[in-house]
């Protein structure tokens, strides 16, 4: 069993995006599931994410983008992480990431090519995100993977 403080993530809405609702809800759902969330709120730059991750020793950065500029705002994010000395940090991204109705699989491919580890549509169940976060962090840290309890994952998103 790992304690609560073992999962530490930086959360924020990237770029000039000011959609605060999902941001507040993500924090409110992840924290009771044992994830320590450092919430930078809305309109966060790539460097602000990275600064916070360095400062707090976070395991992952959770990037939200709702307003459709995600493709522009996220360009070069992984490269910047490498430059700043966080080559292996988990990068998650989710929301309405592009303009227009595009097949999600295309969006997923685009952002994975850009170096994001996981890509989510806006409808994702946050319990699933939490479960994946824990698995990925444990795996990346080389620890024995815990058995994830999926029983609370079924809730409609």
């Amino acid at each position, binding site marked *: 069993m790992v304690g609560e403080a073992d999962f530490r993530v930086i959360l924020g809405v990237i*770029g*000039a*995006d*000011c*959609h*605060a*609702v999902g*941001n*507040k*809800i993500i924090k*409110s*759902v992840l924290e009771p599931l044992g994830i320590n969330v450092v919430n930078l*709120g*809305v*309109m966060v730059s790539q460097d602000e994410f990275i600064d916070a991750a360095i400062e707090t020793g976070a395991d992952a950065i959770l990037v939200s983008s*709702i*307003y*459709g*500029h995600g*493709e*522009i705002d996220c360009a070069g994010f992984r490269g910047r992480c490498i430059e700043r000395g966080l080559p292996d940090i988990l990068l998650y991204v989710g929301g*309405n*990431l*592009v*303009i*227009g*109705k*595009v097949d999600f699989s295309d969006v997923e491919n685009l952002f994975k090519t850009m170096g994001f580890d996981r890509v989510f*549509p*806006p*409808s994702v169940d946050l319990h699933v995100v939490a479960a994946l976060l824990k698995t990925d962090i444990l795996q990346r840290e080389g620890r024995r993977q815990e058995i994830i309890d999926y029983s609370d994952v079924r809730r*409609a*998103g």
Partner: protein
Amino acid sequence: MSDTSLNDLSDTKLDYSVYVRERDTVLVTWHTGRDVDFARGVARHRDMPDSKKFSVALAKAEHDQRTLLQPRAGVALLREHTKLLNDLSPYCDVLPTTVDAYTRHNRYEEAQQGIDRSRAAGKSLLNGFPPVNHGVSGCEQLVDSVSKPIQVRHGTPDARLMAEITLASGFSSFEGGGISYNIPYSKNVPLSRSIRHWQYCDRLVGLYEAEGVSINREPFGPLTGTLVPPFISHTVALLEGLLALRQGVRCITLGYGQAGNLAQDVAAMRSLRRLAHHYFALFGYGDYALSTVFHQWMGGFPENEAKAYSVIALGAAAAKFGGATKIIVKTPHEASGVPTMEANRAGLQATEQMINMVSDQGYLATNEIDQEVALIEREVHSVMARVIQLGQGNLARGVVLAFEAGVVDIPFAPATVNAGLMTPVRDNNGAIRIFDQGNIPLPDDVIALHRDKVAERATAEGRSASFSMVVDDVRAISASRLVGRPNPLPQSL
């Protein structure tokens, strides 16, 4: 004048000389500012046919008791944006130009990159049209290439340059306000600054009015679009309306975003009109044209398009029963982000059908609606009284102090100047009530009513009210319900 402190904030009409000096500083913030020519703008408006004037379209709709249809739409490039508006034009009454998010934060460099990259990519990478970058000549081309009135719709705390450029180009309506385009749209902009910047915009509109050119102004009604109790958004709409009137604005459209409960939505629309006339008269204004706008559901939509259509249809019915002059239309692609032209057209057509079918029917009169109207009006009077009191004769100052004190408090807002202490939640009928009033001043019996309504739901669901209930409510409509029940009895098995 871009760092107005609270002490500098007045709510008198901006002195013309102050406006002119400030204008010089505004127009140099991007190179396109140099092309702004007020006299030429006035002449353009005077020469426009009535069919392209927002104020005329609204007055006619008010008179005929019709509800105008308006989509949201904006793409990066001029030619594509012109085509988009012309493709939508046959399906709506008035046109929008939705501005991209970089421009909303005055990041014209990034907007320019967005334009350049969009040109290279062959598709819009911006979530709207950047009017400042396209400048007066681009905006004039746009206005000249469409046959209906166009409104600027954005979310910009400092929209001074955008207003100068778009109004001079022939846009005849301008959305926003110092509160409604700050609190839900920015993080660290002081409220006194955004109010001051919107006094500038309203003063500019007033200058056009003084030349006999009526420009419509529309405070942004839905705010965060997320469980906003009607009295909160009404209070903001009334305050922005009063601030605008003070600067010489005369054609005002007050807005409201669909909450989802039909009785509350109809009551909200009806009370909004009554309250506006009440407060505008109270502050001594008689010479204004009032209209209302209803925004279809601004929260999360079902991903499934068929389900999205029913959210759109319910909004259309509420708008018409509520007597809205205009409706801002959502689309069946809403859950997937910025919609295509086809999705926009579908949303307009679905809305038109419902509005037509409802407009042929009688007035919807229920005790529930009357009670909601009375409740909203009591709530608004209570909050407005405190704001006026805090301002001590300076309403703009009252607004800033009210937000500082949490007297006006918008749920789920990104702005740090918003207290964020008030927590809303749906009651057992899906109406938005107050779970925690924070510092909002409301009469004891009103608070007791909210408490009872929330308790009724908690009992029905066998759980106590909590933030988790609120989270469930935020997601409810996208999950095919109105109220976020725990394990709801599924309608389909």
